[in-house]
């Protein structure tokens, strides 16, 4: 019933503003094949309301897009909506009063009740007010394996990290890279974090990333993680690619056996026509600890003077959480919907696994929600250096603990 109500509410909003179609500029960095396909679903839904979608896509991840977004907002000529990883990144803009308060929309639509896990909405909340519309859940804790690589070698497809490591030598002997890894620093750091969750366990991970406990960071659980990472970096030697989806592509084409990457990699497999469970296998939590983080993307709305624009922004925010958009967008993107009450009938094997874990509540917050971008950047620098050099696990751990100790 509630669903119907909110739908009606959304429709009412649509009807109210449809008369004044406006050019609605949306900035995002979803430009890869699967991403663009997903964002097109939102655009379609938006244009169906009679408004115009002005696409402000900038390729090259958040680092390229961020100065553009902030400049636009500072310069007083902002876009109407922009994509941000929700988390602590936008805090300051909220403090400076640059972002539109969505609390009324959220209350009207009952976001508090429909958004699952609720932590997603918490990440959008600042001093009790809601400033962003979460759109999907992305989790990092996945390992993707190409089944055919193992079939050719006559090996069973590994079901956890240890099995993967055990078979790695044979994969290598066959002239393939066991673990694909792109050169960008966030990739190695992300993979490291995934290994940390899986191998050190939830409590230790939360102690370090959540409570910034440097002792745990220097402790034996993380020592094990660094040892494993040291082993993993050997397994990734030979993957001479930069971008994450090039690395994914190595797995798709069978040049590499596996990749640790977030669930967005799924979009690439889908684009390549591969079927989850048949052509490729996904192991949440590396098959060790089936936990997933609930990061994801959200849309923020710069405050504007024009009431029509404000109305359109609210309309857009409401639309993003509508069941239709949630289903169509997340199916295309390979991410999970932010509301637990929609039916992903078309969800594939991997998404189902994710949904199950989500339903069980085996979630952890995303690193972006716990760490400031500053700390994240420092970790990126450390882990990517660790990954590319022969830095010993002990040295890396010592520096890791230092960064955690100074994190705010």
């Amino acid at each position, binding site marked *: 019933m509630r669903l119907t109500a909110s739908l009606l509410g959304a429709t009412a909003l649509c009807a109210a503003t449809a008369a004044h179609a406006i050019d609605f500029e949306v900035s995002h960095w979803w430009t890869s094949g699967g991403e663009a396909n997903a964002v097109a679903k939102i655009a379609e839904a938006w244009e169906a309301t009679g408004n115009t979608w002005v696409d402000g896509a900038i390729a090259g991840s958040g*680092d390229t897009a961020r100065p553009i977004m902030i400049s636009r907002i500072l310069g007083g000529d902002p876009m109407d909506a922009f994509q941000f990883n929700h988390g602590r990144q936008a805090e300051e803009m909220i403090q400076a009063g640059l972002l539109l308060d969505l609390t009324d929309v959220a209350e009207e639509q009952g976001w508090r009740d429909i958004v699952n896990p609720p932590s997603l909405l918490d990440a959008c909340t600042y001093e009790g007010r809601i400033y962003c519309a979460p759109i999907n859940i992305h989790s990092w804790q996945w390992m993707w394996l190409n089944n055919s690589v193992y079939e050719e070698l006559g090996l069973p497809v590994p079901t956890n990290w240890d099995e993967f490591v055990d078979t790695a030598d044979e994969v290598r002997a066959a002239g393939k890279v066991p673990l694909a890894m792109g050169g960008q620093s966030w990739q190695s750091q992300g993979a490291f974090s995934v290994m940390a969750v899986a191998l050190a366990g939830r409590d230790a991970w939360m102690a370090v990333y959540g409570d910034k406990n440097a002792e745990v960071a220097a402790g034996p659980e993380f020592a094990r993680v660094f040892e494993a990472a040291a082993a993993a970096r050997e397994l990734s030697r030979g993957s001479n690619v930069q971008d994450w989806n090039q690395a994914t592509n190595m797995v798709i084409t069978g040049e590499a056996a596996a990749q640790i990457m977030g669930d967005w990699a799924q979009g690439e497999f889908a684009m390549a026509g591969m079927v989850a469970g048949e052509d490729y296998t996904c192991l949440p939590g590396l098959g060790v600890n089936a936990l997933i983080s609930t990061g994801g993307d959200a849309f923020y709305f710069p405050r504007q003077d024009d009431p029509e624009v404000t109305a359109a922004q609210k309309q857009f925010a409401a639309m993003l959480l509508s069941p239709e958009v949630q289903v169509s967008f997340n199916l295309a993107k390979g991410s999970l919907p932010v509301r637990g009450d929609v039916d992903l009938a078309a969800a594939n094997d991997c998404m189902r696994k994710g949904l199950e874990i989500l339903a069980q509540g085996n979630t952890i917050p995303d690193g972006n929600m716990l760490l*400031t971008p*500053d700390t994240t950047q420092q970790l990126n620098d450390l882990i990517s250096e660790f990954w590319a050099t022969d830095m010993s696990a002990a040295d890396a751990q010592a520096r890791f603990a230092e960064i955690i100790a100074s994190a705010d």
Partner: protein
Amino acid sequence: MAVTDQAAASPVRGASAAPLRRPMRLFRNLSAKIATLPMILTATVIFVGCTGWTVVHSFTSSRLLPRLDFVGLDQYDRLWSTPKWYVAIQNLAVFGVLSLIFSLVIGFVLAALLDRKVRGEDVFRTIFLYPFALSFVVTGLVWQWLLNPELGIQGVVRDLGWTSFTFDPLYNRDLVIYGLLIAALWQGTGLVMCIMLAGLRSVDDEIWKAARVDGIPTWKTYTHVIIPMMRPVFVTALVLIASGIVKVYDLVVAMTQGGPGGASEVPAKYVMDAMFGAQNLGQGFAASTMMLLSVVIILIPWAYLEFGGRRRG
């Protein structure tokens, strides 16, 4: 009274009567001053003003947005305790020195070769110069590809049968800076060559005749006579190359993104990463202030020598 009398009495040809006192200093060359207003504004408002703004904000804890909550030298403490910053300045030093030397040497040698009445000089010159028309992004892209171990030069040579051949500077931490150098030189030496060629052309032919009569070997004529005569040319080339080196960013991002594992970090990238990646504006401003400081330390004495003492007329 005297003014009007005077003006009436004298056979004035010009439009205006003679001014009887020295015009105010401020209004002399007024047109020139008005015309240079854009330059003056750029120099003061943009280069001094914005730089000052940056320096001031480097003492704050600004993160995503510039804010004036001062934290003293915290950002600098942090800067100088970050290994990445040391890597960045070390890389800049190596890259800077090498690219200065190689640009000047290659540029000069190419110019000297072309200056020897070469047939098809225009063709060669165009070939050497055209990369300058391409952006660093394009340069980075092309060379990233040429240096790709599987598809690029290494792969091709290996396919020819020399399987142990290794040339993968972009994936080797110790060599990555040289990989960048190869691309940077490809893009930039053409212009240096052009400047040098112009300098060589300005050398009086009689110098060559004199050197020939005196029996001085060609190379010695270059090192002892020609190069010292070309000082202003070298200065211009130096300014051009150096300003490019300090700002090198696009190329690194396009070719290596600072990798592998941060081995090709440079200060400008550190600044960008801090400002936009880490959303720590204060840190980025502190790093850029350090960059600026070193530039100023190097440039002020030069600018003083170059522009301080001389006057026209």
